[in-house]
């Protein structure tokens, strides 16, 4: 038996199919925050380039589209404020996802929990319509929203804690269920008698979240969202609970051996995550729409997942990413008007950005080493 001939392959082929021959990726023991951050920035750069390519393929001027995007998102004071309006629900759903993902609990149910929160807030406002003073009413409405979001999330977490049911699938299913439950409520019991649409009566003025300026839609929900982000950061870094959440995410086995009650922890994390998403729903209801309907911030839950992942699960990074994605949403409307490129471009860019960030994050963990395997 003699040695087989050395494989003749291009470096690229070897790297793809046989990491090990000729060129090799070598894993770093530790990546470090600087490299991770750089990876995200590079990935975003690549996504922008890819978006440009897509625009060009769709037959529009790339620079024109980018300028339209920028003008639409930040060009004027009004558009900049509107970007923040768009970012508001995304911060909340992004935080909701980030908390759960930190514990390696894959809560894909942000969308359903968001709507559960909105429904909870509306229900409380209806129940306690005469409650004064108004701040007390707000407290109860937000409480109702947080509770509704947390409870909806708890269906999945209790099933996971007790039966080890896969939370990815249950939370996805619960999104659909929430949509139909809400449709049913809005078609039947909660429907306003004065309208043809599936929606409730317009809420009383007293339930409106105050706005920062009279000439924009930016409401206190944004401040609440930023505050929540700071709070989540604080919890994760400075409290025993946050310590346990990070421990559970990084090594559930060791957490269990060192005394963490994993079941209770799963339920707690999901409850917090659901509550944050629910508060986001309440913010949109009370700050913008003032009536419960099926299309308050459609897809905010899913976009929140992207935002959390792009922000590498960092709560303050979530705020930045949410504003960027808010700008994208806001700007793409302008792009559609200027160039005719459909605003659905946003979703493609979101998806691409996430894919590139994920790839870059892994790439940052490696360095490429040339091996001298071909000598002999």
């Amino acid at each position, binding site marked *: 038996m003699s040695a087989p001939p050395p494989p003749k392959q291009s470096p690229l082929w070897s790297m793809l199919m046989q990491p090990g021959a000729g060129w090799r990726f070598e894993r770093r023991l530790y990546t470090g925050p600087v490299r991770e951050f750089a990876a995200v920035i590079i990935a975003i750069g690549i996504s922008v380039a890819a978006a440009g390519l897509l625009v060009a393929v769709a037959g529009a001027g790339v620079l024109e589209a980018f300028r339209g995007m920028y003008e639409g998102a930040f060009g004027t004071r009004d558009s900049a404020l509107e970007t923040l309006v768009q970012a508001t629900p995304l911060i909340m759903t992004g935080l909701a996802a980030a908390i759960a993902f930190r514990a390696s609990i894959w809560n894909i149910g942000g969308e359903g929990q968001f709507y559960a929160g909105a429904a909870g807030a509306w229900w409380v406002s209806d129940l306690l319509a005469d409650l004064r003073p108004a701040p007390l009413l707000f407290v109860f409405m937000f409480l109702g929203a947080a509770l509704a979001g947390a409870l909806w999330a708890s269906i999945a977490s209790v099933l996971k804690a007790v039966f080890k049911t896969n939370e990815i699938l249950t939370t996805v*299913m619960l999104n659909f269920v929430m949509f139909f439950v809400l449709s049913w409520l809005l078609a039947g019991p909660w429907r306003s008698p004065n309208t043809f649409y599936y929606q409730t009566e317009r809420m009383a003025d007293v339930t409106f979240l105050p706005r920062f300026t009279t000439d924009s839609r930016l409401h206190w929900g944004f401040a609440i969202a930023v505050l929540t982000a700071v709070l989540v950061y604080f919890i994760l870094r400075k409290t025993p609970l946050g310590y346990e959440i990070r421990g559970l995410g990084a090594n559930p086995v060791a957490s269990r051996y060192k005394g963490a009650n994993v079941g209770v922890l799963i339920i707690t994390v999901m409850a917090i995550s659901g509550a944050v998403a629910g508060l986001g729903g309440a913010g949109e209801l009370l700050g913008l729409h003032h009536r419960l309907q099926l299309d308050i911030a459609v897809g905010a839950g899913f976009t929140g997942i992207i935002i959390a992942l792009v922000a590498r699960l960092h709560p303050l990074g979530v705020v930045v990413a949410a504003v960027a994605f808010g700008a994208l949403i806001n700007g793409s409307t302008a792009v559609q008007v200027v160039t005719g490129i459909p605003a659905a471009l946003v*979703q493609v860019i979101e998806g691409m950005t*996430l894919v590139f960030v994920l790839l870059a994050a*892994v*790439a940052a963990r490696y360095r490429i080493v040339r091996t001298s395997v071909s000598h002999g």
Partner: protein
Amino acid sequence: MGEILTHLLTPAVIIGILAGAVRIATPLLLAALGEMVSENSGILNLSIEGTMTLGAFAGFMAMSWYENLWMGLLMAVVSGMLFSLIMALMTVTVKVNQVVAGLALNILGIGFAFFWFRSSFQDRSSLDVPTVPTFDTADIPGLSRIPVVGEVLFSQHWLTYFAFLMVPMVWILLNKTRYGLELRSIGHNPEACDMRGINIVPRQYAAVVFGGAMAGLGGVFLSLASTGMFFPDIAAGRGWIALAIVIFGNWRASWILWGSLFFGLIDALQLSLQAKGLSLPFFGDDYQVFLALPFVFTIVALVLNRSRSRSPLSLAIPYHRGER
């Protein structure tokens, strides 16, 4: 309640529901079988929903360009394979967390289909939905004349027959061929296979791409057999239900068949009741409750059937040679 029973006990209705169940089970079965093969190689592909959407879209577009249904079918398969190639690249080669990669590709797949669809039909108003002709059902000569059975099983689409044929095919592939043995071994213990000189990477690629092709077929069934239309949420959760079917089908082709039929049955039942305009106790004639049923049942089924005995031991765990 009595009204519902009278409706359901009519022979014609029963046959209709059963035939509907088989039809509705088709895309679930296709997607779930493909996913099962992929998971057997250790790769959890969560992007089935996105792949189905893309398949439905590619088929629809090809149909509107070439006005040829088979061309549509082909494009759906090709798009499913290309898209899952990205999944394979991310999870097998780059070793991104498989859950996260799947979520990302779902978003990308649906977004891409939606964007391209809008770009292609941007002049139309949103109420003017483009439609294309669909596959006709293909009666199997002789067999389709058998009473009841013929109507339920042998007056279906070609794709439905294909899906059912794939059940034994996939079983044979996994259990009777060298490739299947290697694939299952990789799903349980990739390191052992690597040490036996089996090149894991191309096998996992192949399994994932096969899963993508099957999901693409499942998707095109929706656009070119069921509806003749495309819309962004055409998959409507079927990709996710397919994932659930793999779990409570315990990674067995035959159980996956029964799981798909079960969901087809629930959906066919609710469609029949809804079409008849019958009202439920308490919920009245609000059909939304019916629509929620398959999703509620998925959760219930996941809780009730938790046997994981045949779950690949290394599912969703990336393999790095030399790292233990």
